[in-house]
């Protein structure tokens, strides 16, 4: 009995970490095949820059996917928000901070519109968001009149290409090729993780639960810290922490907290697992759906800002196919298409796998058409592997 329980535990852990292991193997593979170019500080920086908006969208997309549906309008919402931003700053010369606020508000309003059809009228999300995909793409063309607006103010562009300056280095007058602030932040972050882990262990002890030994807590933290320090070290050797990383990091931590620690998170998983059961447990399904789609549009607005800042322009073609990238990231990260299963970590790892594939293959000089094929195959094989392993475990 005990043995089967233990076997089950290792299986679960493997499933949980499988994608992370795949990510590490993939990174090593590209490191070798590109003679180390893949691991160069500038390239690590680029990967983060290139994928920031996809990661933001993947975090947002996880929520509809958890309830068993998807949002197809994401790319168009990104485009329409970029267009707003472009027109406001380029045509009307409005200040950057007001533009950002208005863009976020626009995103929320779009979300209210979407949520109305899905939650109140009970329209299948696939159809409602399909309609919105067309509406907002069209609206983008109308707003931009088919033209690309560029360049955008440099302080706006900073959002996606800026980085945290080495304040500590400047303050203490240290001349170094290493960005000291970045490393200090990384170390503080690692210490916070350790404190968090120890604290949760202490809480468990207070409840009299079985806990893993202090040693294994340190070991686990050491592994995570090593990964964080490695990435930050590469960044510190280049410019420092990109703002994009801060945005993604804050969003990831926040949504992870919402999904794993709050009643709202529980409600989302419950609705995805069995909507009828959730309803009979007193969960307001319409409210949950409304929140999810308002949030998705909000995240699309954030991604729209990040993306237009990166392009340094507002283009009518912006954001095409982004919804598919975000959906693929979630599924790659172990989310279930029928809902109820999926994690923020998974979505991030899935998004990074897609991003690393892009970047690594480009460095190897593989043409973009072949890249598409490879990415498609990766999604299919990864999900097939997931389904087959689930079938096996349920038998």
């Amino acid at each position: 009995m005990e043995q089967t329980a233990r076997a089950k535990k290792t299986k679960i852990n493997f499933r949980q970490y499988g994608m992370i292991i795949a990510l590490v193997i993939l990174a090593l593979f590209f490191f070798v095949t590109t003679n180390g170019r893949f691991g160069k500080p500038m390239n690590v920086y680029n990967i983060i820059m290139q994928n920031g908006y996809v990661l933001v969208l993947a975090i947002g997309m996880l929520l509809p996917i958890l309830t068993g549906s998807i949002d197809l309008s994401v790319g168009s919402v990104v485009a329409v928000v970029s267009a707003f931003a472009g027109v406001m700053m380029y045509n009307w010369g409005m200040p950057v901070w007001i533009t950002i606020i208005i863009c976020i508000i626009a995103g929320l309003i779009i979300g209210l519109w979407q949520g109305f059809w899905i939650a109140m009228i009970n329209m299948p999300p696939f159809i409602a968001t399909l309609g919105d995909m067309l509406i907002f793409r069209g609206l983008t063309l109308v707003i931009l009149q088919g033209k690309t607006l560029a360049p955008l103010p440099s302080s706006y562009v900073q959002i996606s290409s800026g980085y945290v300056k080495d304040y500590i280095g400047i303050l203490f007058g240290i001349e170094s090729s290493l960005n000291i602030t970045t490393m200090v932040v990384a170390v503080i972050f690692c210490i916070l993780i350790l404190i968090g882990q120890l604290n949760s262990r202490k809480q468990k002890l207070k409840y009299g639960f079985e806990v893993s030994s202090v040693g294994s807590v340190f070991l686990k933290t050491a592994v995570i810290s090593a990964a964080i320090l490695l990435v930050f070290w590469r960044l510190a050797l280049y410019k420092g922490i990109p703002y994009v990383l801060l945005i993604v990091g804050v969003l990831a931590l926040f949504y992870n907290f919402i999904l794993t620690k709050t009643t709202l998170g529980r409600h989302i998983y419950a609705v995805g697992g069995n909507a009828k059961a959730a309803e009979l447990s007193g969960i307001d399904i319409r409210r949950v759906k409304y929140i999810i789609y308002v949030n998705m549009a909000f995240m699309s607005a954030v991604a729209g800002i990040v993306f237009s800042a990166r392009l340094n322009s507002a283009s009518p073609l912006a954001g095409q196919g982004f919804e598919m990238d975000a959906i693929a990231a979630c599924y790659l990260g172990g989310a279930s298409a029928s809902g109820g299963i999926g994690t923020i970590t998974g979505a991030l790892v899935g998004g990074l796998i897609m991003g690393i594939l892009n970047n690594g293959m480009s460095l190897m000089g593989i043409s973009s058409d072949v890249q598409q094929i490879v990415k498609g195959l990766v999604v299919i094989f990864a999900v097939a592997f997931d389904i087959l392993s689930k079938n096996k475990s349920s038998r």
Partner: protein
Amino acid sequence: MEKILLEMQSITKEFPGVRALDNVTFQVREGEIHALVGENGAGKSTLMNVLSGWYPHGSYEGKIIYDGNECKFFNLKDSEKVGIVIIHQELGLIPYLSIAENMFLGNETAHKVGPLEVIDWNECHNKAIMMLNRVGLDENPETLVKDIGVGKQQMVEIARALAKNVRLLIMDEPTASLNDADSQRLLKMVQGMKEQGITCIIISHKLNEVEEIADAITVIRDGATIETLYKGIDEITQSRIIKDMVGREMTDQYPKRVPKIDQIGFEVKDWNVFHPLYEGRKVIDNVSFNVRKGEIVGFAGLMGSGRTELAMSVFGKAYGKDISGKIIKDGKEVEFKNIADAINQGVMYLTEDRKGAGLNLIDDIRHNITIANLQAISDRSVVNENEEIKVANEYRKRLNIRSTGILQPTGTLSGGNQQKVMLSRGLFSDPDVLILDEPTRGIDVGSKYEIYTFMNQLVDEGKCLIFISSEMPELLGMCDRVYVLNDGRIISELKGSEITQERIMDDILTDTRKRAKNGANSKSKENEN
């Protein structure tokens, strides 16, 4: 007429944890109408599913001898080949296809063009008209099924069976959803088919119909044949059939309890509910009931009598629309705006549909227990996971949920343990009034006993318990009082020694007959107008 067409010998069929059929023997003579009767869950439908090949050969023990040969059916197609056709209780017609399309679904008249089979619609329509004539239905075969009434749909089902060259027709509750006039028409049809040499097995709850048309009646109880009565040989009365159907002696399948009944804790008055989809159809008609603290009150009735609908409409309007009536809890009138509101005010309902509407099967025991009352373990909507684990472990121990731990997904538990998870969820929401809808459906005897024991504990704590069940012995064994429902109304209230299966059945049958008569009268009046 003495030739035996079908003989099912020593059929035993087991489901995980339940023996649904135990050594059942069943004989049908050629050209007769044979009625199969028994309580809900007695095994009638299972027996017919074995016969039709729905449960393939090998999944049960025993022999089927049909027309002198032993048969091994692996699917419905196999049994249809030899002329056995089953018409299920829920109509198997597709509403947006035409009558003809439905009739020849999977049985199309087609000729091969290369690898394709091209349907010959003219031929199909011709045949359809012929079959429709045989059942006395004058409809254009191109009419969509959704546009004809339920009665006619049932006729289409029979015509469909005829199109398959049926020799032995099995009908599961064919008149359950029909009004009296349509029922009569259908029964006449069945008798007409008998003259055409078609043998018929009818499963029915309506004993008056059975008495009227059947040449033989087989009674099944608890997965075993009790007896077969033949018209003209045995004396067939409804009371004899009922006795056969319910007959078992009460032993101590039910834990003893000394009732400690207090004042009225929960009361519903003049409750009316309309169907959520069909405009103007009343599902619950002016119902009033009450439950005292420390009392187990049963809701008896046949399927479709409105028990679940009543319970769910009271539970924060989880069912129905245009709901009217009063709810009085602890002497005060209350209103439940939605389900969350009902739960907060101390009413909890646990569904009969454990898998479909009860549990999140992909999630673990822990989350399933706490989901209805997360705020109890949360600080400003942040869930305290340690507290949650503690709670889940407590309930797992208290209800003896057999599992590898609280992290086991509920989808992998047995029915009895799933039900205990449901009960835990109900209890964790700390209700004063708990409504249990078929809490023991499809679970093994041992778990049933545990659940009964638990119900007794709850009322001993002074809670009000409403117990909906289709298994009458269970109601008899557990309830202090029973309301009998039929057709969306409470038709009687039975106390103590009045609660007998015969009485409940009798009340339902009398009421159905009365309603049918009134219905027929008002129908004829309508026609006059």
